């Protein structure tokens, strides 16, 4: 089964929620090589959050394969190939990442096989009910895409907090990933 992980960062919110220049912050998250990327970057703030979203998207994919959760950002190491393409290594696993963004947000998706066809969508949401709005967005999109009846589509999370799409309470052979942060939401899906 092909799986996907994604992560969106609202840059305005990231600027207020986190102080990346706080003493010790970068060192807890980024390897020496990643810190080089940041130091050599014209836009350090953006590079911090690009690397972060790469790691998060890869982590979300990784824990679907290896049930055990962990909190150790340096266990993941990013390589940047281009403005969009990158790679994240976690132990013996390697993931291809694709990142897009602008001044407002950064959005990364991670895959095992980068030739996999992915549908991804990012959108504005209101703060307060971000997860509900993200659920609604993917369900509405999926209903249109497949001609399925909207009211029969639901999302349930596994015990490991991984979301799956259901139609009439039957799990569908799609892998999905959902993310929201601040005023941005995103979903990604691949068919298996």
């Amino acid at each position, binding site marked *: 089964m092909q799986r996907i992980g994604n992560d969106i960062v609202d840059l305005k919110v990231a600027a207020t*929620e*986190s102080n990346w220049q706080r*003493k*010790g912050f970068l060192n*807890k998250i980024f390897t020496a090589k990643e810190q080089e990327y940041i130091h050599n970057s014209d836009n350090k703030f953006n590079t911090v959050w690009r690397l972060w979203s790469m790691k998060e998207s890869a982590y979300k994919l990784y824990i679907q394969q290896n049930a055990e959760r962990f*909190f150790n950002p340096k*266990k993941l190491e990013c390589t940047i190939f281009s403005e969009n393409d990158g790679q994240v290594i976690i132990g013996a696993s390697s993931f291809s990442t694709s990142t897009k963004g602008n001044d407002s947000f950064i959005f990364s998706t991670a895959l095992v096989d980068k030739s996999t066809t992915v549908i991804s969508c990012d959108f504005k949401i209101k703060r307060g009910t971000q997860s509900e709005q993200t659920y609604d967005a993917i369900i509405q999109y999926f209903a249109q895409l497949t001609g399925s009846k909207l009211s029969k589509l639901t999302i349930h999370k596994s015990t490991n907090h991984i979301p799956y799409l259901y139609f009439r309470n039957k799990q569908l052979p799609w892998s999905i990933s959902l993310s929201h942060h601040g005023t941005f939401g995103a979903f990604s899906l691949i068919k298996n």
Partner: protein
Amino acid sequence: MRTNEQMISDLKEIVKPYIQNQHGFDSLTEETDFINDLKINSANLVDVVLDIEDKFDIEIDNDSMDKMLNVKAALEIIETKLSEK
């Protein structure tokens, strides 16, 4: 020596600025998960670790941080690091 209640109360003070689920915070126990129950975003979990280091004057290495997903694990790591001082 701090009691367990004091440790939990110190930890509550530390996580307070980062929580996004007040109910989870109000009913915090040792089993409370920082991300799933308190909805602390994972970037802020780094701040929680740094705040713990500052508050208790300890250093939390990456291997210890690895398990720090809930209150119980955090308390255990703090106690271990304090006993090593």
